[in-house]
């Protein structure tokens, strides 16, 4: 997804499985069965604990670059959610930025432009300037 950035700082570790204690070493057990077990990564520690990470569940967060923190002014959903027509967010439900710097879900602004009252020229629903898509 070209227009997206993955924000490294929000990578999270989730679902650690359960921890078993054997002697002085802590082990994160992998819960899924069939794959060959990863040898694990030894974590350095200043304590006596010997921690071996065998599995990490990494999750990323993405944001549209054009959207900012706001919600779509037409459907009122977060930009990173799908518009009310689409089931899934992402490339299939992109944002469009106007020359006035206001962004909307593409499907939302297209419906606004197509509304009979907005013919022949639609205005931005937020600032009423003539709507024109900003060049990327």
């Amino acid at each position, binding site marked *: 997804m070209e227009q997206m950035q993955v924000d490294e700082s929000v990578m999270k570790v989730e679902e650690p499985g359960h921890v078993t204690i054997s002697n002085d070493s802590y082990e994160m057990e992998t819960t899924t069965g069939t794959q060959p077990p990863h040898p694990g990564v030894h974590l350095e520690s200043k304590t006596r604990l010997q921690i071996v990470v065998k599995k990490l569940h990494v999750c990323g967060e993405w944001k549209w670059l054009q959207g900012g923190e706001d919600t779509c002014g037409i459907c*009122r*959903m977060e930009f990173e959610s799908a*518009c009310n027509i689409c089931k899934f967010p992402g490339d299939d439900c992109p944002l469009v930025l106007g020359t006035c710097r206001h962004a909307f879900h593409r499907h939302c602004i297209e419906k606004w432009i197509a509304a009979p*009252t907005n013919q022949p020229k639609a205005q931005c629903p937020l600032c009423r300037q003539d709507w024109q898509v900003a060049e990327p």
Partner: protein
Amino acid sequence: MSNIALNRLQRECKEVVTNSEISETGIMIEILNENLTEIKGHIRGPPDTPYAGGMFDLDIKIPEQYPFSPPNVKFCTKIWHPNVSSQTGVICLDILKDQWAASLTLRTVLLSIQALMCTPEPKDPQDAVVAKQYMDKPAVFKATAEFWTVKFAKGHLDVNKEYQTRVDKLKDMGVREEEAISVLSCNNWDINRATVYIFS
């Protein structure tokens, strides 16, 4: 109703209900049916206006194309205001017509109507009789609007005794109170002209 309208309305209702809006601005909504096509709006009369102390109810009808078409909003509480029909409650407000924008919400619409109650636009009237009185006889307009607030919007001001006497006179002649108030208001409370209007 389309999915987009329903989803958005559900969010909007939350916005109005949870925003501690009621205490701060005096706007409220009441959901009448599950598919959110009909909603009741309530606006508290703004302070320092003839509507202060009153509670005004509005009928809101959501069109199929919402939010790409404006909601249909009209007063169901009778109100004496240059931009609202004193007969039907229809509101003349640009954002409910050609100036509608998809980014507007029930909340902003109700706030706009409340602002219109503070600042009438007599040059773009919905009710020409009211607008003329507003411009030519501002004191009569104020007293009339206050009288309507007390009578129709549960305002708690004292009722204008002089006006009430004239209403009662017409009632004694068999005129319904609502009609008596309306005709007297339209005739700047001249009881003779009001009588002629009703019985001729």
